[in-house]
């Protein structure tokens, strides 16, 4: 496995360089995983991507670098301590670096020579390919989807030139992933929404959710999806609810700040029983916080957001497969129970790309939006039923009136002040959770059946936790015989409890791992099961925890 870092200032094209490199490496067989670390600015500052590639399945990043591609001085300065002794620093000739591992290439000179100073970064791609013993025959195919036709040739030339000036250094490891997809978490999520029959997406730009809207907009005409940039997040959620009420499958997405503005709308979906999927792509708060960084600190917030009580479901995405398949499940559950479903992701997963098996569409069941049939008897939109789910019709599609009211209402949807009807309606809505609880997905269990220490986590720390369990069980640190396993939650609310109780009972210690400052999952678990975690590994500096860091800190807390 190799770990590369590409760093430079905003505006230097790190993203495109990384994306091209990723795709080329994947095409040549590697499993590639790239995470992105950038600042909230358009030009300048210091941004970087970590590209990890190898022959096994990779689900997280690592800071132990084999190579640094530095587009500016700062990158060398900041990251060279992370570089292993045999690693390299690839940079332009004019960059200050007296590190003996430096490979200087006159990228700017080459770029100028071939007639376009902007392709200096592309020269680096060529050099990297050579260093890792790649071929460059199929480069053109890949470049086509990243570069405008007019610039194709000059870019190919830049790669070739870079390739020519570098030397083979690392052997090609020959993976089997060339037929896999490589895509970001947000793209996987968006594909899931499209596969669910999404017809309407309304949102207001906010990192790290904006790429959902961007990808959807680029496919709008092709897939018959209206993407509406709303005037604010309040409009965004009310539009999604209006569209869903009227029969178009609808979603809205934002980050925590926008979610704060959607709180009342969330309750509207709960009260009027209009299916709704809301994505919260988390970033560090409070408020504006770190706009482009990562955190898992909205869990309790989204679970209890909005006044009053109504059923909802919260699904946390753990990895790119989840991003696709769980999004589809979110739509199905929203439709089946006529409730809001919140998808929690975060900047790490949203922006990271991973290599995964092409999504299978065959065994996907899509629950269709509300029936359109006529009723013989009286149609009651909010009919009191055993399981709380009433017949949802689409206005204008039958000879029945479809109603919605945010006041407490009777079975017709008319405003009521009756104490009796109130209790019935509250019970009807809340009872939907009973059936939903039966179809919750237990957390994924990772590691040996017999273990000493149980790690707990949720969402995007899945990859790092999985890696940590592997590291720790290889015999690590002070007590190499200690065995570690982990449970990582995808469904977080309602909280699935069966496996948790079973595994917790066997653990000598329970260590909760979260990318936040207060240990929100631990609180939730104690509230619902009484199980108390022995200790917490918490990180809240906006940078995703790595498998190595979890392993180190798990060792530490296992002796306290």
């Amino acid at each position, binding site marked *: 496995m190799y770990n590369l870092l590409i760093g430079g200032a905003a505006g230097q094209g790190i993203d495109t360089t990384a994306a091209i490199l990723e795709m080329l490496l994947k095409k040549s067989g590697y499993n590639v995983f790239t995470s992105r670390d950038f600042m909230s600015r358009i030009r300048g500052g210091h941004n970087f991507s970590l590209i990890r590639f190898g022959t096994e399945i990779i689900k997280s990043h690592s800071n132990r670098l084999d190579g640094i591609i530095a587009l500016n001085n700062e990158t060398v300065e900041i990251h060279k301590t992370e570089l292993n002794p045999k690693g390299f620093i690839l940079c332009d000739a004019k960059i200050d670096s007296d590190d003996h591992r430096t490979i200087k290439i006159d990228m700017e000179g080459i770029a100028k020579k071939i007639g376009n100073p902007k392709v200096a970064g592309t020269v680096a791609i060529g050099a990297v390919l050579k260093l890792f013993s790649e071929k460059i025959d199929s480069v053109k195919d890949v470049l086509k989807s990243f570069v405008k036709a007019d610039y194709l040739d000059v870019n190919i030339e830049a790669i070739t030139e870079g390739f020519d000036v570098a030397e083979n250094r690392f052997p090609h490891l020959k993976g089997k992933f060339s*037929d*896999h*997809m*490589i*895509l970001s978490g947000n*793209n996987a999520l968006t*594909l899931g929404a*499209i596969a669910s*029959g*999404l*017809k*309407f997406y*309304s949102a207001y730009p906010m990192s790290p959710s904006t790429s959902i809207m961007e990808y959807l907009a680029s*496919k*709008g*005409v*092709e*897939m*018959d999806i*209206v993407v*509406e940039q*709303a*005037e*604010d997040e*309040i*409009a*965004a959620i*009310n*539009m*999604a*609810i*209006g*569209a869903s*009420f*009227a*029969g*178009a499958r*609808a979603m809205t997405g934002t980050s925590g700040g926008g979610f704060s503005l959607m709180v*009342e709308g969330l309750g*509207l979906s709960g009260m*009027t029983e209009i299916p709704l999927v809301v994505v919260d792509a988390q970033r560090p708060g409070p408020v504006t916080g770190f706009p482009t960084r990562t955190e898992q600190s909205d869990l309790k917030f989204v679970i209890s957001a909005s006044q009053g009580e109504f059923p909802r479901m919260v699904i946390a995405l753990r990895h790119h497969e989840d991003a696709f398949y769980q999004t589809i499940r979110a739509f199905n559950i929203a439709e089946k129970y006529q409730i809001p479903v919140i998808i929690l992701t975060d900047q790490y997963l949203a922006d990271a790309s991973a290599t995964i098996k*092409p999504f299978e*569409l065959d065994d996907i069941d899509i629950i269709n*939006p509300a029936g359109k049939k006529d009723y013989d008897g009286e149609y009651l939109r909010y009919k009191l039923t055993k399981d709380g789910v009433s017949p949802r019709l*689409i*206005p*204008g599609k*039958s*000879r*029945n*009136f*479809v*109603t*919605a*009211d*945010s*006041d407490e209402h009777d079975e017709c*949807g*008319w*405003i009521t002040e009756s104490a009796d009807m109130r209790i019935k309606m509250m019970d009807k809505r809340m009872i939907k959770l009973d059936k939903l609880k039966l179809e919750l997905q237990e957390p994924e269990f990772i590691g040996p059946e017999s273990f000493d220490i149980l790690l707990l986590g949720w969402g995007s720390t899945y990859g790092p936790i999985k890696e940590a369990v592997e590291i720790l069980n290889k015999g690590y640190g002070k007590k190499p015989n200690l065995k570690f396993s982990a449970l990582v939650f995808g469904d977080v609310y309602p909280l699935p409890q069966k496996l948790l109780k079973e595994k917790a009972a066997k653990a000598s210690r329970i260590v909760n791992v979260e990318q936040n400052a207060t240990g929100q999952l631990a609180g939730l678990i104690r509230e619902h099961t009484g199980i108390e975690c022995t200790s917490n590994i918490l990180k809240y500096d906006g940078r995703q925890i790595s498998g190595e860091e979890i392993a180190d800190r798990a060792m530490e807390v296992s002796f306290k």
Partner: protein
Amino acid sequence: MSKHTFNIQHETAWCPGCGNFSILDCLKTALEELDKDPYEILMVAGIGQAAKTPQYIDSNYFCGLHGRALPAAAAAKIANDTLTVIINTGDGDSYGEGGNHFLHNIRRNVDITHFVHDNQVYGLTKGQSSPTTDEGQVMDVQVDGNIIEPLNPVLTAIAAGAGFVARAFSGNKVHLVSMMKQAIEYKGYALVDIFQPCVSFNKVNTFAYYNQRVYELDDRYNSGNKTAALVKAMEHGDKIPIGVIYKESKKTYHQKNSVLKNGGPLLDRKTKPAEIGKLIKEFI
């Protein structure tokens, strides 16, 4: 003669003498005269006294959040443009809590109709000043008189780019029905700001107050001239014009949106698995 009736047996929660009754009557008449099918009507409202209107008319309805009628209405129309989408709600709902949606749905120009029951007061919460309350008026919270200049919704709507802007008075039913019909028939966002006496909380802008002041715009007035319309909209003193203040034909959201302009109603379009397969391939 109309095929349909919009009457429903449902006790209203309004005060006797309230202007809302006339507005409700006129709306039913307008819909009947336009020969609308009740099942294709979607009535939308926020929260307030006016916002209870949808409950009292035989139709589909969506009474959502205070201030948020417009986004829900616009999106419902985007989802299914075979629906006739009509918003009846209050001045506080439309211009206060909902002010941002007012500005931006004018720009969005989805083909929806917005009837504002403008009683110049927050009725349901018992008499605080609304965005259209006159300066100086003593209100529940404005104990020394309202010090904030009222918003002129008609002028603001024209300035923000609305293509159909009218003013009416609940006390002139024939005229109101005509305004309603024209607004519903207009292709795009249409605003009718309707003076509506609130007998319980507005002791200044009473039936008599409006009745003395309003006059109908006649044929000599050219509602197609924007400058003239802006000037006319500013006429708001001893005499207040009612009628279509401004009308301009504009492309609607549906006509401009690249997804909607071709093909049937959005909700009827099916996502094809083959197309998804194509998207997946782009990542391989």
